[in-house]
């Protein structure tokens, strides 16, 4: 994939994203290729996919239920969540569920209509890598895309809401 940014900076990586509809079959995958497959294909065939030499990850559609991945978490080095439009905010909740409810510790990648105005909020809810939509300016590192130095709410990155950190106990 191209235009990937994470804490190490901006790069291209070896993952190949396969955007395949649920009913369609996967294209042929080279044995050593790292691929990101749809959830339905993963659930149907994770034994075969996981036994390949290349790594296999899944991507979750905006309306996907992260709970279905729980039983195979330890096989998944990466989960991607799709944002068909940046105004579709379901993926923010999915990310928090994966991180906070189901304790998923692998890489969590935001894909789709993702650009730097949204990186900070995505980071807060648990994403740690981002595929920047083509044509959008590429931030050189995640730190550069942080308009806010503080947040009121509890989040994956800061489990304590501001009032618990600020109001003096005692």
């Amino acid at each position, binding site marked *: 994939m191209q235009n990937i940014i994470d804490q190490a900076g901006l790069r291209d990586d070896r993952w190949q994203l396969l955007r395949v509809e649920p009913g369609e079959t996967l294209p042929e995958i080279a044995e050593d290729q790292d691929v990101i497959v749809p959830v339905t294909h993963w659930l149907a065939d994770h034994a075969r996919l996981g036994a390949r030499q290349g790594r296999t990850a899944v991507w979750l559609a905006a309306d996907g239920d992260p709970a279905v991945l729980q039983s195979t978490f330890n096989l998944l080095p990466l989960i991607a969540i799709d944002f068909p439009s*940046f105004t579709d905010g379901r993926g923010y909740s999915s990310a*928090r569920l994966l991180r906070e409810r189901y304790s998923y510790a692998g890489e969590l990648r935001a894909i789709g209509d993702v650009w730097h105005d949204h990186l900070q909020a995505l980071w807060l809810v648990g994403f740690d890598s981002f595929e920047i939509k083509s044509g959008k300016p590429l931030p050189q590192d995640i730190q550069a895309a942080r308009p806010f130095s503080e947040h009121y709410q509890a989040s994956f990155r800061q489990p304590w809401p501001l009032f618990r950190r600020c109001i003096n106990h005692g």
Partner: protein
Amino acid sequence: MYQYNEIDQRIVDERVAQFRDQTERFLTGGLSEDEFRPLRLMNGLYIQRHAPMLRVAIPYGMLAARQLRKLAEIARRFDRGYGHFTTRQNMQFNWVQLPQVPDILAELATVQMHAIQTSGNCVRNTTTDAFAGVAADEIVDPRPWCEIIRQWSTLHPEFAFLPRKFKIAVSGSIDDRAATLVHDIGLTACLGATGEVGFQVAIGGGLGRTPIVGDVIKPFLPARHLLTYLDAVLRIYNRFGRRDNKYKARIKILVKAMTPEGFAAKVEDEWLHLQDGPATLSDEHVRHYADFFTEPDYPAPDSGDFAARRADDLAFDRWVERNTRPQRQTGFRSVILSLKKTGVPPGDITAEQMEAVADWAERFAFGEVRIAHEQNLILPDISERDLHTLWQLARAQGFATPNIGLLTDIICCPGGDFCSLANAKSIPVAEAIQRRFDDLDYLYDLGSIQLNMSGCMNACGHHHIGNIGILGVDKNGEEWYQILLGGSQGNQAAIGKVIGPSFARESIPDVIEKILQVFVERRLPDEAFLEAVQRLGAEPFKERVYAKHH
């Protein structure tokens, strides 16, 4: 009132910088119209018929005098010398220029104000009772809770892109003056068996295309759980609310589809995971916020010649009766400054008027002003001794029309004169009604009547909950008006019903007059208009209004 600390200020300043950057990128082609639209809406900026409109948040309707002066300054420098108060305790500027909006936001930030989430598909400004802290029937002061909700909702990373807008109202009194039952979430603060503060949670109320009164899904939520419970509700809505059709995207549609019981159960399941988590409020946290809203140091009550003035001067007496409310603090009253003077669009206020009100707030009270969702201004804490002086000042500024709660105290959206969503104008209709019913004796005889008017079904003028509602509709490119009867806000909130085919604009005053004739002929002693409509049903009103001429 609440004062920003260094972090609150920094967050608002950073939001200004972020929006300045986004605006510049839009103006230089770095963001497309489709990309910029949701971003600017989340900062209250609409592109309207004539110019962009900027909606400024007035959190839970409280303003300090210096904030009101800043709004006056903005009205002069960046607009045409006036602003408009909305039914959600916000102020709108209708004539701003897009490149100047970041500068306006920077000005607002200097007085701890902002336009964050005054539009867009996110959690909007939390609204409450305009008489909070002074109302005689108050059980719990809702303002600390509103501030807690304001902070929780401000730039919430999980809930910036909900299926649709989301409105929360909080009431803490016996009479609900915050229209909680027509909000996405309506919170009513109450006391549990052991004196513990909690909230009754109503969900899925709202007006707009699908008007509906909310359902109580939790009769008593201990207050310490407020934020974790809100997180649970919003998460269920964010994940499962419809996104395929914006007209079906409000939470009320989801609640209907799941049934209130089904929705409540889903929220409970989600909440089980969040309950008692880090966002749980301790007594100490709550006290921290409550300390910003403690009672000011009231001087000893001194009524001066108040009683004698009332006895001598009928006009003053009427104004006191209609436009002031007793407070729980003896000897002090809340003055309602009417923004419903005939000939002025309801809710509009000039820069000069804003400055005058700011002066009065400091001269006569503790420097605070409230915005009522009925689009009037409230000056709390006025000593009875000062009422006559204030009345004279208010008269000179056009604020003293003694019509609060009467037929001409019309709630009205800006309508087709300004709003690009509107199907019809609303301001000229409101004015025509005010001109027809200008006889105060007649208005007083009619008693309390809430007339609400919207220029389209988005219902910013809350027409469904007016005792008489007027809705502008488009019929083949012409402006027509439907009449609704029987709506009400408050504890017994009810959605008015359309009485029949719509009317041409010029006939609306006649139609209202016929409705009032039926009321006057058939009312029981001391019966209010709404009670008469409830008792009689719509039929006698319809018969008169739609009678064929012989």
